[in-house]
């Protein structure tokens, strides 16, 4: 079996007495799209937060990289972006007073270098780099179909477009792995279709993705593999079809063991 790009092993995280993650193991391979599902409070976002350096796990290992896997434990969030992991947020977190373009340009921070002196003196390199960043951001805005709104304020966009903007911002760091936290939440059916198409386009570029999603209509068509979390534990893993038939998954979502599920077994 090929070396995994992201390898989460035995991850445990507690908040006081509440166990948010217990011994979670997750492998994501290059080029794969993994759907991460589970009821509210199952620990999905906590898992993202541990991987992206916002939370420190109590136990377990997170390794990243295909050739020379490197432990991400203890790395700050921006170092993890530098290693090639980008993310979006469940409750969109844009920089509200900045333009759409500026939001995406900020995503290039780890890929650019202008320091204090370059900025203060507006050196040739600084100006060239700024130009490059703006062009790169425009490319990404085209990818998410926001090129016409580049000058608008991030916060002024309708909700559905804010989601796309956040994805463009995440892509601006040239990630190897993209973590999407409920990208379809709060979108209407039309917007959902557009989002699906966008994720397909990103997938076609060969990017590896993990997405948290509740809506099976979003998860199923784009996920190569689905992982189910419940009460902080991995309870099932497999292809989309297999997961939909899994009794434990149905139980986790509906609360009680279902007769239909028993029969299906």
């Amino acid at each position, binding site marked *: 079996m090929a070396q995994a790009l992201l390898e989460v092993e035995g991850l445990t995280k507690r908040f006081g007495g509440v166990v948010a993650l217990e011994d979670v193991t997750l492998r994501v391979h290059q080029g794969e799209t993994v759907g991460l599902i589970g009821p509210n409070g199952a620990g999905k976002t906590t898992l993202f937060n541990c991987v992206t350096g*916002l939370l420190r796990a109590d136990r377990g290992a997170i390794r990243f990289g295909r050739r020379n896997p490197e432990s991400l434990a203890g790395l700050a969030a921006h170092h993890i*972006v530098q290693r090639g992991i*980008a993310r979006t947020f469940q409750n969109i977190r844009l920089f*509200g007073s900045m333009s759409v373009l500026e939001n995406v340009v900020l*995503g290039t921070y780890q890929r650019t270098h202008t320091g204090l002196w370059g900025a203060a003196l507006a050196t040739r390199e600084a100006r060239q780099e700024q130009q490059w960043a703006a062009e790169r951001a425009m490319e990404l805005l085209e990818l998410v179909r926001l090129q016409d709104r580049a000058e608008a304020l991030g916060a002024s966009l309708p909700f559905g477009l804010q989601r796309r903007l956040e994805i463009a*911002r995440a892509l601006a760091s040239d990630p190897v792995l993209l973590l999407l936290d409920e990208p379809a939440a709060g979108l209407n059916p039309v917007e959902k279709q557009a989002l699906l198409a966008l994720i397909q386009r990103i997938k076609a570029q060969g990017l590896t993705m993990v997405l948290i999603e509740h809506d099976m209509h979003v998860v199923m068509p784009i996920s190569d593999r689905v992982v189910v979390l419940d009460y902080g534990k991995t309870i099932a893993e497999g292809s989309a079809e297999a997961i939909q038939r899994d009794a434990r998954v149905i139980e986790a979502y509906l609360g009680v063991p279902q007769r239909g599920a028993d029969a299906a077994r």
Partner: protein
Amino acid sequence: MLRNRQLWVWWAGVLAALVLPLVNPNPYQIDVLATALLYGLLALGLNVIVGLTGVLHLGYAAFFAIGAYTYGLLNLHAGLPFWAGLIPAALVAGLAGVALGLPALRVRGDYLAIVTLGFGEIVRIAFTNLEQWTGGPNGLLGIAHPSCWVPGRGVVSFGVSSAPYYYLILLLTILVAGLCARLSRSRVGRAWIAIREDELAASCVGIPVLQLKLLAQGIGGSIAGLAGAIFASKQGTVTPDSFDFILSVMILAMVVLGGLGSIRGAIAGALILGTLPELLRGFEQYRMLLFGLAMILIMRIRPGGLFGAAHRLGRASSLMRQRTACPAPGG
């Protein structure tokens, strides 16, 4: 085109400021303006920390004090002339900013505000109590005024006349304002604003939050250090009570009044609040009372500041965010 018009207004303002002492040579008024501009320099520096980066700093006067004492001590003990003293003053105050930030930036929000307030008080009291070096409450006396070479007259001291200081401070304010404007539009400045808007999102976009906050503290500190050296050379004396908490608050009020992150706002805020007590001098003992009242009213009438972006914010940082989405106040 808007940019061009703005630039035009800028240059008109600069020109007016340049000719003002020739039109109106009243030394008292020039002195008030010079002091207000010095506040402008301080407001520009604090604007980097509070306005751009969103770190609420309540001890900014400490950096001003450190700059003033650095130049004062170097001048008195090592005979360092003013122009050479500017560099160590800015450097030491900037380093103090970084040194304070290194441990303090672990603390967040209102708690950080209190740590910085404590820092400001500690620095002031330390300057008061370390009598063998700082002269205690009496401060440093006999600090040299700046001097410069004038064609036909040789090296001339600025002495106690107002106009040379006015021009010196004006020049430096323009320089620092230009630098800040450039910075705020650069990769570094955008990252600062991102931190102000949403620190957590900024870190997840790849911005090294702590490092950039330290940078902001360092730059803000050195600008205050520069201002401190000018202040020391202008007064000729430095006493610790010039750097009390009220000063930190005044500078903060200037930045907030002007609009967080706005460069012209910082200068406008400084000019207004810097001259207001003088304009209110006719009211004698009531002037600080009116000053407090003015602060309350301004916050109520223009909550985003004169040139602020706050009114167009959707969601924003911990500093800018509404404390609570309160029900409509009333009844």
